[in-house]
């Protein structure tokens, strides 16, 4: 008999339970967000959530995270190939080519790229001489520029940023020389006007709309205002499940993806929106903590990358929902509708659980003196 409770205790119960909590919430909220659209999205979500539960419950005991390291370069290659394929065979939704239709399922290669980029950079950096040299830094940045450009041209600025964000975090934590970092940041600031001229019009509009929402209440700023009204009108305890008038009456066109948090805020109020926000925060901290405990470099950097993507992606999305960040199209981990993202995030959680499982099983593992310093 598979004793679930006992098994969970062998991994990390906090990570497992917080993930399970988010998975269950996703079904509840997708149902609400698609309630008025004669939609059956929630049924698909139930299927994906079931797969996700399978992944985080059984796979941590079956697949060792290090195996992902050995195949990380191939994962990287596969995601680049998928990103090129989407250019040719992609399905266009709302003007962006982001999906490959597999018949039963629409695959979103940018999510696969996000996942494999974390593994690949963690593996790459853990196998170089540390602290990270400029040469290796340029190598890994060059390699991550390929998926970045491919996703950016879809166009999907949000996902493009999120593909490189964990790489930057790992680079930073690999003690890459601080002088270089400052240098690159300064160069970025100097180059930003040049980048601005290369942004797509709708991206510029979104940034302008974010800086001054009242400038264009019908267009791009519309989402921000309506999302703020939705969240604010939830007040302390919300309007009640399925009773959100903002989200139910066409205020939020992307209410089951990028603006799912607004639906939660409206229907459940401050109590639950605060709770969810906190869940992401604790989950991210906990994974950082597991990383600190891990004495093997690859596992360590993997945890740092995963912790940063969970924390920052969730916070950017929520910031977008509450009007503190421009609308860049970043979904909320686990809660936004999207099968590929859900599976990829579950695989990340599976690896974290497996790292902790091995930590507990093997006790202190001495791999290198280096591992103690990072």
């Amino acid at each position, binding site marked *: 008999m598979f004793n679930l409770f006992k098994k969970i205790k062998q991994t990390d119960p906090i990570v497992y339970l917080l993930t399970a909590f988010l998975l269950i919430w996703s079904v509840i909220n997708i149902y609400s967000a698609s309630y008025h659209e004669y939609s059956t999205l929630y049924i698909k979500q139930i299927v994906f959530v079931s797969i996700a539960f399978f992944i985080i419950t059984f796979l941590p005991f079956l697949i060792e995270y290090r195996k992902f390291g050995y195949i990380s370069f191939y994962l990287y290659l596969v995601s680049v190939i998928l990103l090129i394929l989407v250019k040719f065979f992609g399905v266009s939704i709302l003007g962006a080519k982001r999906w490959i239709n597999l018949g039963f399922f629409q695959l979103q290669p940018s999510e696969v790229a996000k996942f494999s980029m974390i593994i690949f950079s963690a593996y790459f950096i853990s196998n170089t001489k540390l602290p990270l040299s400029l040469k290796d830094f340029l190598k890994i940045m060059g390699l991550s520029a390929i998926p970045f450009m491919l996703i950016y041209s879809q166009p999907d600025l949000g996902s493009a940023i999120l593909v490189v964000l964990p790489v930057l975090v790992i680079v930073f*934590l690999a003690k890459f020389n601080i002088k270089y970092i400052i240098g690159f940041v300064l160069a970025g600031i100097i180059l930003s006007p040049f980048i601005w001229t290369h942004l797509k019009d709708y991206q510029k509009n979104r940034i302008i709309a974010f800086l001054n929402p009242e400038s264009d209440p019908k267009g791009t700023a519309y989402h921000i205002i309506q999302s703020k009204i939705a969240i604010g009108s939830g*007040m302390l305890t919300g309007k009640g499940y399925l009773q959100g008038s903002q989200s139910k009456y066409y205020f939020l066109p992307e209410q089951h993806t990028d603006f799912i948090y607004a639906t939660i805020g409206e229907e459940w109020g401050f109590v639950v929106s*605060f709770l969810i926000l906190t869940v992401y925060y604790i989950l991210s901290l906990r994974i*950082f903590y597991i990383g600190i405990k891990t004495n093997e470099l690859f596992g360590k950097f993997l945890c740092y990358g995963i912790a940063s993507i969970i924390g920052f992606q969730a916070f950017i999305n929520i910031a977008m929902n509450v009007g503190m960040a421009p609308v860049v199209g970043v979904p909320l981990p686990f809660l936004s509708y999207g099968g590929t993202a859900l599976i990829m995030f579950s695989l990340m959680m599976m690896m974290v659980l497996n790292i902790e499982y091995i930590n507990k099983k093997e006790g202190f593992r001495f791999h290198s003196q280096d591992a103690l310093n990072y």
Partner: protein
Amino acid sequence: MIKFNRLTFLIFVLTVFYFALVGRLFYLQVIRGEHYREISDRNYIKIFYSNPPRGKIYDRNGVLLAYDVPTYSLIAFPYIVKKNYSMQELKENLKNYLNIELDEKTLNIIEKNSYPSVVIKKDLTQKDIENFYNYNHLFHGFYLEVVPKRVYTEEANYLAHIIGYVGYPSEKELKENPNLSPNILVGKAGVEKIYDSLLRGESGQKAVLVDAFGRQKKVLWEKDPRKGNDIYLTIDIRIQKIAFEAFSSSKHPSGAVVLVDPNTYEILASLSYPTYNLQKFYEGFSQEEWKELTENKYKPLMNKVFLGKYPPGSIYKPLVSIAALEEGAITPETRIGSGSEFRIGKWVYRNWNKRGCGFINVSEALETSCDTFFYQVGLKLGVENIVKYSKLFGLGEILNPDLEVKVATIPSKEWKKKVLKQNWFHGDTVNLSIGQGYVTITPFDATKIVVPIANGGYVLKPHILKAYFDNKSQRLVHTNPEVIRKINIKKWNLDAVRYGMYLVVYGPSGTAKALKTAPVLNAGKTGTAQVYSYDTRKKRHHAWDFRDHAWFIDYAPYNRPQIAGVVFIEHGESGGKVAAPLMAYILKRIFKEKIIETE
């Protein structure tokens, strides 16, 4: 003890971010919550639809068959209605001022707020609209929507099965097509369904900010409606009407007529008889009328042209003749002694005419429809070749998936093994060569036999859409004839068959002398297809549904065919005596009324 290193710096950043978001949430939901709640209570966005007229349907000469008229529906927005009235109040107001009795289902939708909008009453009368206008202050959250209603003209009734009908989209259709609005008309059957994407157009949508009383405050975004395209059918309604009158004056209760242009395979008339009143069908029959229609043994609701499958009988013989001539089983000059019966072992196959036919060639065999001639030819030819030519002619094949639903069953050795789990016998080939046994075709399939004979071997794609007027480009877009394949038939072979079909009408022993009176030279073939054996028929006192089917295929004029077609009379007993006179009537009127002019 916390060491300050890069990791703690990163976690610090995350924490600052976290507290900033908590603060923001607290500000929006707790401090300013009241303010935002007010905004959300005061303002709603409602989607108003404007339904454009559906495209008109015309016949090939521009005779109007179907068009739209506007009607008004009373629509309610549950969310606003609920905020303004108790369910009791709502029921009373509707009853007292608008004389509307609200049913449980609608009431439930309003109470549970389970749909963004709900239809309260359709097809409002002038009086209803006046009342709503006068008592508007009592109906916050209600509004009138223009809903198109389809009107079918008197002429369209002759074409009921082809035109089909329209209705509102089902929930499934709404789900599958985001461009549909709940009150747009979509095609549910017939041409209305086949060409729905041309006819339908697109609803306009307007997102309007409304206040708590449902008053429109501001238009947020708008999508203009797009009118549907008008379409022109290949049907000539005059010919369709003649076909109908041929039936209605003949007292035959059930059958079908299809007439096509053999040069283009445009369908000029397609009648399934009896027919029904299209307008009434669309608006809804009473229970008795409906019962009568569905229980009528002549099946008025079924489009027999495409859905009825019957044994073809002797109209299959021209096809068998071409197969035999082309495959070298016979030549046009080959003469075969054809008596009154043909034996295989102990089995006896009789000729329909007890006198026998004598020593005849293929043209003469077609003239008298000599069964014993075709028994022998069929056996020599073999079942494989009959099947091969049936397939070449397009029998058992869907030539136009828009139109055809069922296809002919052409039995072969493999077919019999698979379906009936039996071996093929010579007797089966004998039966097949006169269009009896397992072979069944639709009346439309019968035109597939006659069209290539009339046009010299071209298998074309049949079509019913002559053209449509594209609103975008403001141009008429025509459907061009499309050749699917050409059957290579040697001229002398084709001529022999054509001549045989000519003799059917004009020969001394022809089986369809009725056609002689037609104003143009024509050629045809009769078919009397046995449904039950003679003994069974006799036992049942020749009851209607035990009688033979009557067929007649024809093309005219003989030298340069401009029209080809089939008359099928269900249980009509005799192709020559029953079906042929109907075709004669139709051809006479078509050419006398100069609907088709001979050069």
